[in-house]
């Protein structure tokens, strides 16, 4: 069997299935990670002492330990405490927790870059602190944080391959299985690489469109 036919008939079908799983992982992980990151970042800047401390510890902890270790703890460790997750759920939880830690850094930096005068002006109008954060500070901060968060999302597309380590058969896992069965690593992993490249290109273009949509003169 020559390479092209091999790829078309044997490699692509399982890889497409794997790609679907990867996309499903991303569809859950990206938005949830971003939302959690925003909450953690906001808690760090605007929370009271306890909340701010807890959010900071969260970030230090999950940025300071390898994602793979986090995944192992979630999938293989937690069952000893009676907590069981499916491979897919375990992977999503790991990705959300980890990417949120990185997002929170960008969000926090963006909050701190907003001049104090914005808060003063909002409060002078009669807004509560909470209203000022929601209506004035956050819309500006998220625009400043977006380039950093975009990068993190693109990383996430690629490190989603670690899901295979907790037996969630996504793109890389599916590839590893066919490659091992037929002992054809080069072709298979070249195709996998191409598929990731396509996904990254699509995601980064979507993010660019979003950045452009949200762009405001003088901000960002």
């Amino acid at each position, binding site marked *: 069997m020559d390479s092209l036919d091999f790829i078309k008939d044997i490699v692509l079908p399982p890889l497409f299935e794997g790609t679907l799983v990867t996309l499903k992982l991303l569809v859950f992980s990206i938005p949830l990670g971003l939302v959690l990151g925003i909450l953690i970042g906001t808690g760090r800047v605007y929370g009271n002492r306890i909340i701010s401390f807890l959010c900071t510890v969260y970030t230090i902890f999950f940025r300071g330990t390898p994602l793979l270790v986090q995944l192992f703890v979630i999938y293989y460790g937690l069952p000893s405490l009676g907590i069981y997750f499916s491979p897919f759920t375990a992977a999503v939880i790991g990705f959300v927790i980890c990417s949120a830690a990185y997002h929170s850094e960008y969000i926090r930096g963006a909050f701190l870059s907003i001049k104090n005068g914005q808060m003063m002006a909002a409060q002078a109008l009669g807004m509560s602190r909470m209203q000022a954060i929601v209506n004035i500070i956050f819309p500006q901060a998220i625009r400043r944080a977006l380039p950093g968060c975009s990068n993190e999302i693109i990383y996430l597309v690629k490190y989603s391959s670690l899901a295979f380590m907790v037996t969630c058969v996504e793109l890389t896992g599916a590839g590893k299985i066919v490659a091992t069965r037929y002992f054809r690593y080069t072709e298979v992993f070249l195709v996998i690489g191409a598929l990731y490249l396509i996904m990254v290109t699509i995601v980064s273009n979507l993010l660019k469109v979003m950045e452009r949509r949200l762009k405001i003169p*003088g901000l960002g």
Partner: protein
Amino acid sequence: MQEDQPIVLKIENIHKRYGETEVLKGVSFTVKRGETKVIIGPSGSGKSTLLRCINQLTIPDQGRVWLEDEEVTHIKKDINLFRQKIGMVFQDFNLFDHLTALRNVEIGLIKVKGMNKKQARERAYNELLRVGLKDQANLYPAQLSGGQKQRVSIARALAMDPSVILFDEPTSALDPELIGEVLEVIKNLALSGMTMVVVTHEMGFARSVANEIIFIENGMILDQGSPYDLFINPKHERTKKFLYKITELYGKSKDE
């Protein structure tokens, strides 16, 4: 003309300390409806701190503030209700950078006053008209000149229907050729009967619209009186010197 008008704002014995230094050492004054009070004083004398103590953006260590018949400094009252009625205009504008001029003016109406969007938009548009910026309604702050930004921020304060507006050096951050357009707007407000406290070193403006000039130094009121009293007949030699100095520094404006 303001003689028999009711008191809008009453400030009593305000003290504020930052660490070792006592920035305000017991400042008191009252503002009647329709009055324009001008506050002058050297840099660091506590003028901005005083204005911020009025709407509690800075909490004074001691002293009380009343707006009309209600005590602003009363612990149990919602400060946000008072702040709606105390407009504030900042030296560096502090327009909301992510909102157009129009949205800057309407956001307080919608989020704070709970006005419906259509009414708020109409009101905001009228306020922009009043400060001569109807053509700039849809521009973002970054697309406006300094003078235009400050006029938007005045419109933003006016839209809330405040009982009094506090101005903190509204023209100090502006290029000289843009100062006139902003002073013009403030002057028209004064003439239309708005109650205002204005920190400024524009003496031409002060002379033409101030009912009273308050001279603050080292956190205390050193002198106060009508422009005539202060310029011609100040209590302290120090007042005379300061007035002379800032008149030199800021030049004489067209009103003189």
